[in-house]
């Protein structure tokens, strides 16, 4: 049986991890490669690197980082952040990324999803969607949730699937940073209406939240950052807890 995935997310700026990490055994807490290796060894199923830098040198630095990660890490990883063209994706995949994640560029130019799926295959194209529930309706937002659009989450997700995305990474802006649990109601709707895997993101605070998002939210994978970086949750403990609750995981 296919297992549910646990995915730590690393925010990257100019080739370095941004959000503070609390790993006393790290020689260099800012080195994404070292952190990635530790996560791979501790039982993470995948990794996501989200590049938030915006300099001219960015693309080169990112490709260089991707290459260093691919050399060292023996689990799959996705790279996202500022990817807006076929060329961007080509460089990252050739450097050793397994998947790329696109967000704002897909909203601005939906045909990009079709182009990427046709050229590289759906399996390596993740579309990230940030959404916020406003007056009961889930609306897609851009630029890390700052800019609202008139797109409805569920309609956009369906379109993204039809255009050839292999996976959706859904972040609830209402839940992100709250540590109060994932947006399981919306996740369950996405998971039932769509036929591609859904990654839950935003709101992880404790182990029960992960159980809930897999059972109630029907998510295929769950992504989190700070609970892992600050060692509030150890991945091994989390997976044992999930297994005790009847959730299939790789242990």
């Amino acid at each position: 049986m296919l297992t549910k995935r646990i995915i730590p997310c690393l925010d990257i700026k100019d080739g370095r991890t941004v959000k503070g990490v609390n790993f006393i055994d790290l020689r260099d807490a800012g080195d994404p490669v070292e952190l990635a290796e530790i996560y791979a060894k501790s039982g993470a199923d995948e990794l996501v690197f989200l590049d938030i830098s915006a300099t001219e040198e960015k693309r080169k630095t990112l490709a260089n980082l991707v290459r260093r990660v691919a050399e060292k890490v023996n689990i799959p990883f996705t790279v996202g952040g500022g990817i807006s063209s076929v060329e961007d994706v080509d460089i990252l995949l050739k450097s050793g990324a397994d998947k790329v994640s696109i967000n704002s560029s897909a909203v601005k130019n939906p045909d990009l999803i079709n182009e990427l799926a046709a050229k590289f295959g759906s399996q390596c194209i993740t579309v990230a969607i940030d959404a916020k529930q406003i007056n009961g309706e889930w609306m897609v937002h851009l630029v890390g949730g700052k800019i609202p659009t008139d797109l409805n989450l569920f309609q956009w997700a369906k379109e993204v699937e039809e255009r050839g995305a292999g996976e959706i990474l859904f972040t609830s802006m209402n839940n992100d940073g709250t540590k109060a649990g994932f947006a399981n109601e919306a996740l369950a709707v996405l998971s039932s209406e769509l036929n591609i895997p859904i990654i839950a993101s935003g709101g992880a605070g404790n182990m029960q939240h992960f159980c809930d998002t897999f059972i109630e939210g029907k998510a295929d994978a769950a992504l989190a950052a700070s609970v892992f970086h600050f060692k509030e949750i150890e991945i091994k403990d989390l997976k044992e807890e999930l297994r005790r609750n009847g959730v299939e995981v790789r242990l």
Partner: protein
Amino acid sequence: MKIVIIDYGAGNIQSIKFAIKRLGYEAILSSDAEEIKAADQVIFPGVGEASSAMKMLKSTGLDKVIPTLKQPVLGICLGMQLMCTYCEEGNTDGLGIFHASVVKFDNKLKVPQIGWNRIYDLKSELFTGISEREFVYLVHSFYVKECEETIASTEYGVEYTSAIQKDNFYGVQFHPEKSSDAGEKILENFLKFT
């Protein structure tokens, strides 16, 4: 030892090269028939769509070369699927090395299957040191049906072939280069074949 990864423009082959390097070996990428024929081991990767990958193989003449290879050959993911008789994806004939066809997962399932699943009924030295029901990483929408040449199975709505062997030809549906320590062990086992 000379390990050649067949380079025909398909997919993420750097990861395989890096995984081999982590095991202490060097691999070269090549699309040259003579260089491929002279290798000790050949890895036939592939990510993407079957009919366009077959077109690329045909345009370089590699479709004729691969089935005649005498050294150990390992097809990975789409590489394994292309070594079969027929691929439903893009309605294309494969290389015909394995006597199985490749069909799409039931649409009641989430497709592609992405993630870690188990391999069982292991029947080859490829799996020396690997436990029954070990986890491996898979990403695919089409699967190889079970057949006499199946050497490992996986369940995703249906029991299907996750590894296959005929003579010197091996195929794995999963990505050994991305399947953590177990994957590296399987790759290492293959690299010891002569």
